């Protein structure tokens, strides 16, 4: 409750264009927004640019923010839209990458086990995806966009969005399964505390 009140005050100060409040807002939310930006870009440098542009937009349009909506969701949407714009700009300069080599057969599903994976492993697996697939996956799975919205945002067909999501999902599952099997195959080093207890 106190944090929400503090956030409202911080938002009001940012609406008044107070530089100190803007810095506090950046320090508070830049980590989450940078994680969002880095999932929608190809490199850390691009993510930094997206984060910078996003905060410029946030500070510029924060007066239009209404308290009826989640402030974090509002900022994250700005980051995503900025990343999409960045993606569109760089689309002409990057060659199309595909993951058609990854089969999504019933055999794969049958043999697949629900792997246990961590957030770092998932981030690592997502980073292996081509940017188009990654963007579709993140928009649909994490940001909650519908296929129609994704198609409009990226300028692609709805079926293209659906197929790319399916392929991205299968690719991630395979990578994560590989990571989990490797982790299981590698014996963990006994810790000093375990040795002491034994």
């Amino acid at each position, binding site marked *: 409750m106190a944090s929400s009140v503090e956030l409202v005050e911080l938002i009001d100060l940012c609406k008044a264009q107070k530089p100190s409040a803007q810095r506090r807002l*950046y320090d508070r939310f830049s980590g*989450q927004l*940078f*994680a969002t930006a880095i999932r929608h870009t190809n490199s850390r440098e691009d993510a930094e640019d997206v984060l910078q542009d996003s905060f410029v937009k946030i*500070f510029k349009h924060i007066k239009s923010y209404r308290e009826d909506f989640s402030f974090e969701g509002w900022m994250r949407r700005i980051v995503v839209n900025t990343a999409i714009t960045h993606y569109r700009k760089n689309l002409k300069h990057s060659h199309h990458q595909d993951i058609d080599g990854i089969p999504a057969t019933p055999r794969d*599903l049958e043999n697949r086990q629900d792997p246990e994976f961590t957030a770092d492993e998932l981030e690592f697996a997502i980073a292996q995806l081509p940017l188009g697939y990654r963007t579709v996956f993140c928009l649909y799975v*994490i940001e909650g966009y519908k296929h129609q919205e994704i198609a409009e945002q990226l300028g692609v067909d709805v079926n293209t969005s659906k197929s790319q999501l399916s392929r991205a999902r299968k690719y991630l599952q395979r990578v994560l399964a590989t990571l989990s099997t490797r982790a299981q195959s590698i014996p963990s080093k006994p810790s000093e505390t375990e040795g002491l207890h034994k």
Partner: protein
Amino acid sequence: MKEYEVHGLESDAAFDERCRSLLEGRALEAPAPSDELFASNRRPLGLRLVGVAAVLLMATGVFLTLPDGEAATREAETVMDPSANDQTVEREAILAEPEASEVPAEISMESTEVPSLPAEPSAAEATAKSSPTNPKLESAAPASNEEGLDPLSLDAQEEGVMDVDAHPGNLENSEISSDDAEGALEDALLENDQTIPVQEQAEPEEPNSETEAPVLRLPLTLPTGGGNN
């Protein structure tokens, strides 16, 4: 096949949910913000300060120029006042000059034969002669002399006597001029009381222009009517 699809949809939904839960609140170490990020919000403030400074400069400039302007207007007013007085005097003189030509020759000669009269009475005399009320005042002037109530008229009578004394050889003319001086003084007094505006004095010129207008129309109408018939 349908079992695989159903299993796939359920597993996909579970996989998505797990991914969402893992990544939703995830944060990374963000880079340090650049100075431009916050300076961009300070730029409008700087621009505002520049604007305020410009407005202040403009205001001071206007404030500094206003007294000069007021002084200039005051000087103009002071300059205009004597000029206006001169213009009124000139207008009176202009009005008096053509009317003096309209005055009968005897009276004009009498007025010119009295050099000792001061300038104001002469101007007043000229205006009095030009005014249409002059004959009535001339007729009223002897009545005032008979009553002897107005000290100014008495002084004017003394001046007339002095004028007569100054020109003893022309008694008749001097008497007429003394009467004229008395009427002129009374007219001047009336003018001081009534302060007749210049426009009213200029009104007699309008009938002249109106009288001239038909003269211009006559040649335009005559050839068409007479020539055809």
